[in-house]
């Protein structure tokens, strides 16, 4: 028995060693890199190629040059549409933040059971198709819809809601709110709550505690949530085209119109590139601000 063990052990060790060495430097490594191939092929073929095509079209359609970007910058309509797009995305971001902040805070101080419920309710919209929700808003906001019935009943009178920027903002806020609540909650859950009574005991008023302790500590969540909502809001297409009016269109709708309606590939592509550049720039600035907190939007709309 003892001889067996003596003979066996070194052999096993060397085998194990050889295997480790091989897996660390040789075969396994090469083999593992191959795992990335299908994903990279898909991304290059169906993401890189289309995006590259948009860039080339913006600079070459109908002839090479920057005339498409000149058209973009010099047309008053385009400036107005861009302004409206940024304004709406910004407004939606602010409303989402104002509503989500107390909601997320409540999630950090309530019981486990309530927290689970609050999480489910905020996630639920994500599980319903954006088209279904937009259709519902169309019903609610229409001129003879229930909201207008209610407004008339309480004496405000009927208001134009559908085909206005207000209607678009309402629909967008509801769709984008989960993207604000979730990062806010995860930032707030990390805050050491012992700091708050500590600040109070040193004589700070509740308002001062909030402003100088809690708010700065929740900043990563504010930055991450606001960025996600803002950049998703910039690219919205379905809601503005169904709840908005053609006369108050947003950039995504205009891009579709240039290509689908007027076959102006260069114009549409240039506008798309402008939208993309603003999105990436916003994201870059926000990543700096958030210092390490990851900003990755969820399901894209």
């Amino acid at each position: 028995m003892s001889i067996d063990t003596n003979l066996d052990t070194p052999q096993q060790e060397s085998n194990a060693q050889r295997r480790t060495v091989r897996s660390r430097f040789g075969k396994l490594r090469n083999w593992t890199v191959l795992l990335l191939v299908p994903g990279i092929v898909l991304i290059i073929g169906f993401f890189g190629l289309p995006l590259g095509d948009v860039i080339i079209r913006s600079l070459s359609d109908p002839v090479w040059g920057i005339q498409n970007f000149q058209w973009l910058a010099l047309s008053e309509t385009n400036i107005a549409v861009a302004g409206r797009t940024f304004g709406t995305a910004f407004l939606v971001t602010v409303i989402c933040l104002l509503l989500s902040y107390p909601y997320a805070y409540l999630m950090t101080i309530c019981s486990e059971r309530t927290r689970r419920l609050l999480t489910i309710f905020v996630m639920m919209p994500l599980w319903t198709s954006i088209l279904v929700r937009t259709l519902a808003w169309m019903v609610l906001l229409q001129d003879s819809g229930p909201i207008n019935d209610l407004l008339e009943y309480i004496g405000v009178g009927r208001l134009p809601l559908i085909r206005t920027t207000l209607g678009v903002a309402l629909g967008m806020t509801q769709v984008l709110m989960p993207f604000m609540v979730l990062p806010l909650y995860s930032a707030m859950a990390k805050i050491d709550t012992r700091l708050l009574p500590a600040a109070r005991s040193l004589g700070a008023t509740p308002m001062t505690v909030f402003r100088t302790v809690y708010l700065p500590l929740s900043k990563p969540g504010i930055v991450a949530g606001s960025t996600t909502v803002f950049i998703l809001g910039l690219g919205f297409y379905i809601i503005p085209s169904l709840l908005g009016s053609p006369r108050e269109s947003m950039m995504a709708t205009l891009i579709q119109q240039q290509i689908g309606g007027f076959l102006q590939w260069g114009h549409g592509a240039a506008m798309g590139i402008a939208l993309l550049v603003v999105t990436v720039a916003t994201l870059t600035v926000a990543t700096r601000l958030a210092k390490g907190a990851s900003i990755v939007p969820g399901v894209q709309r």
Partner: protein
Amino acid sequence: MKLKAILGVLAVFIVLWLTLPTLVIIPISFNSAPSFDFPPKDFSLRWYENFFTDPAWLRSLGVTVQVALLTTFVATISGVAAALGLSKVNFRGKSIIENLFLAPLIVPGIVLAIGMYSIFLRFGMLGTLFGFVAAHTVLALPLVIMNVAASLQGMDPKLQHASASLGAPPITTFFRVTLPLIAPGVSAGALFAFVTSFDEVILSLFIQTPALQTLPVKIYRSVTQDTDPTVAAVAVIMMTISIILILATQFFSRRKKARS
């Protein structure tokens, strides 16, 4: 404690605002009149009957499910492979590849849509099953990778080393050790992939042809062209499918917890 009460009331309003508006679609779908009037005056099932007897609606439901299943399959396999690959290797430029994988989440849908339209136009891929699956997979892939990567991060790498040192080839280690441990991440990723494809509108609008349309495209077309309440019935059916999917995941995750 007064603050908590105020917050509670506010939260109730937010919850109502998040959930109630969508529900108006349910009574509309049972409306007997051909309109979107709310509240409806009489109830009928005619819009559901319309949906289930109209070959065009049924075909688009079939296409949607087919595309979603294929997308889930392709995105899950390539996504798990990619997440595994990223977790094992370290090389210069790795972060570039990671960002490349996540980029489809950041690029505005409309920009990707016009690019795909252009490419698909050139290669005759408009309105093809292959085109739909490829387009949807690009959107679903980041979600699979994110979910699987999160699971892999929570896993003890010593378990894989132990398996390898006991002589298991990498394939055996993957199926016997790694996959069972990251199963929650994989199934969450697969589910996100399915829902992403099932609900996707913008890309589908650009790459569809009248011969091959997904359900969301058909809903969009119907909403923009006429006021046929059949879309309300379709919307309720889509909502029901989503709810069944969530309940299924809740059920599975709860069973897993109970077992461990």
